[in-house]
């Protein structure tokens, strides 16, 4: 779907967006990896990162964003983020600790390094999952164009459009 022509013809918007989007993405990564020292963390970072990409889509069109991040990729990343979080917990179990006991990740030292490693890994999982989920929600919204009789064109899980019910 292309943006309305007025937006496409706004050079100021396009120039500023082009300049801002990389900064927003970088800031998202900063919040992600600074989360263990100060305010921040996976959830906020994921939201900021996805917001940067959504600004890109609003200015240059959803198709441009789809070429970077496809809908299927967002679904896969959602699952991968959750799996990363869970895998850290299961890894801790294999190393002899309880589920999500990060101290077990670094058996050699007193455990602080393990805690540090663990929190970075699970927050990365949170960040990936949140960013992907927000983008998937965005795709779901912009994908729902209404045709003549008001039926949504993108089928939801289990609903096929335009088909009568028994």
């Amino acid at each position, binding site marked *: 779907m292309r943006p309305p022509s007025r937006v496409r013809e706004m050079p100021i918007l396009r120039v500023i967006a082009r300049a801002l989007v990389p900064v927003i993405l970088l800031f998202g990564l900063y919040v992600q990896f600074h989360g263990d020292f100060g305010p921040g963390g996976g959830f906020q970072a994921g939201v900021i990162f996805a917001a940067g990409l959504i600004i890109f889509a609003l200015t240059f069109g959803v198709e441009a964003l789809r070429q970077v991040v496809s809908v299927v990729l967002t*679904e*896969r990343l*959602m*699952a*991968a983020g*959750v*799996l990363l979080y*869970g*895998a850290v*917990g*299961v890894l801790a*179990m294999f190393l002899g*600790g*309880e*589920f*999500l*006991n*990060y*101290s*077990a990740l670094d058996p050699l030292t007193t455990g602080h390094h393990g805690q540090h490693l663990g929190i970075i890994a699970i927050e990365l999982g949170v960040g990936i999952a949140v960013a992907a989920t927000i983008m998937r929600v965005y795709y779901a919204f912009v994908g729902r164009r209404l045709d003549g009789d008001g039926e949504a064109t993108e*089928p939801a*899980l*289990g*609903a*096929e459009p335009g088909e009568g*019910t*028994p």
Partner: protein
Amino acid sequence: MIEKIVVLEVVLPLLAAPVCVLVRHPRFCRLFSLGVVAVCFAIAVAVLLEVRGGGVISYQLGGWPPPLGIEHRVSTVNAYLLALVTAMALVVMSFDSRGGPPRVPEQRRHLYYAVFLLCISGLLGMTITGDAFNIFVFLEISSLSSYILVSLGGHRRAVLSAFYYLVMGTIGGVFFMLGVGLLYQVTGTLNLRDIAARLEPSLDDRGTVLALALLVVGISIKLAVFPLHHWLPNAYSFAPPKVSAFLAATATKVSFYLLAMVLFTIFGAPFVFEELRLQAVLLPLSILAMFLASGAAIFQTDLRRLLAYSSVAQIGYMTLGLSTANATGLAGGLVHLFNHAVMKGGLFLVVACLLYRVGSVHIDALAGIGRRMPLTSAALVIGGLSLIGVPGTVGFVSKWYLVSGVLERGWTAAAVLILLSSLLALVYVGKVVEVVYFRKPPETQPIDHVREAPFGMLAPTWVLAAAAVFFGLTTNWTYGVAKEAAELLLAGGI
């Protein structure tokens, strides 16, 4: 060994769901989720064997000791529920519904399995955890996924009933959350055992009484206690039959466990049943459920709605057992959890078989099906007899102990009413059996083409039908565990 892996009960299905989303292959997802559920069942049985006789398994998540850290705590009470939920999940999962719900296209079917696994994970999490806020989180996981599962029914009204279920379920969840918040304000802790130890309930303490009221109402919506049951008949009759079988066999059972845990472990039987006298509300509502819901079931023309209303009535028996607050009655209520799961799960699987072959479960469409589908119809009869409570079936076991518990309490009238309500069950079961075996099929709709259901459907159905007879004859397992759980609850333990 087993105390080190008890957390896998929740973690396995929770992580299997994203694996299904990643792999996207429908057949792989089906076999994979079946395998995961089988492992969960094995762990649940091992845990139950370990804790029987008063054992307790406590698992500290992340290595943080309770009450600050989150604790998973398993005793006979919730080990019984874990075994029940995983067993029913295994049987329902192994039911081959030939392509899943009708309206999930092939390329999205992996999401159906992912949602199913999430629902199982939420139900197991609510059961296993020893942390009040954790219960709320798992409650939301299981609820959100069950709304999705209900909406896949295929009929347009499935979406509407899923939405109605969502609204009611969210109200229930909010009530529960507010109750937990008040308890936290009063006690300053979220660990269930710690709350129970610090709470000194008294009628003068408005905060505590309000917390109890909010928790009971919130859980009662989820449990579909009589006047709050309106979401249930629609949700069960428009959901895919496999989903109805699973939800009827597990979701309300876990809510019942939560209610018992809140009343007996957190607030304690002396406060709830002697000072507050909650049975003055619970008992009449249970009896109303038994009669009005059974009465409504008699007038249903759709087999699924009939079974759904009968579920509301059966929940009345469970809460009746709860309100006796003595070991026999409570054990009767708890054993009815398992027994009702077996018979109602089996009956909804019969519905799935009938829907697959006949295409409709409107009672008139089933005329003469007994000749064409003898095995399916026989399973229907066994489940029906069990609903009535005929000796030799699980329904009889439940009613026997319920009546004993009620008589022990001195409520003779209630015992008579239990027996009278069984007559209503006789009427609605008899109505179906009469049509299936003795009525001639209408000439406009010949049923000559209808064949017996395929093996992949019949086998799980008959596992449950056989269990309904087996556990009706041998009660060592079911009643033995339920009695131990009831005594533990009455002593205020979990």
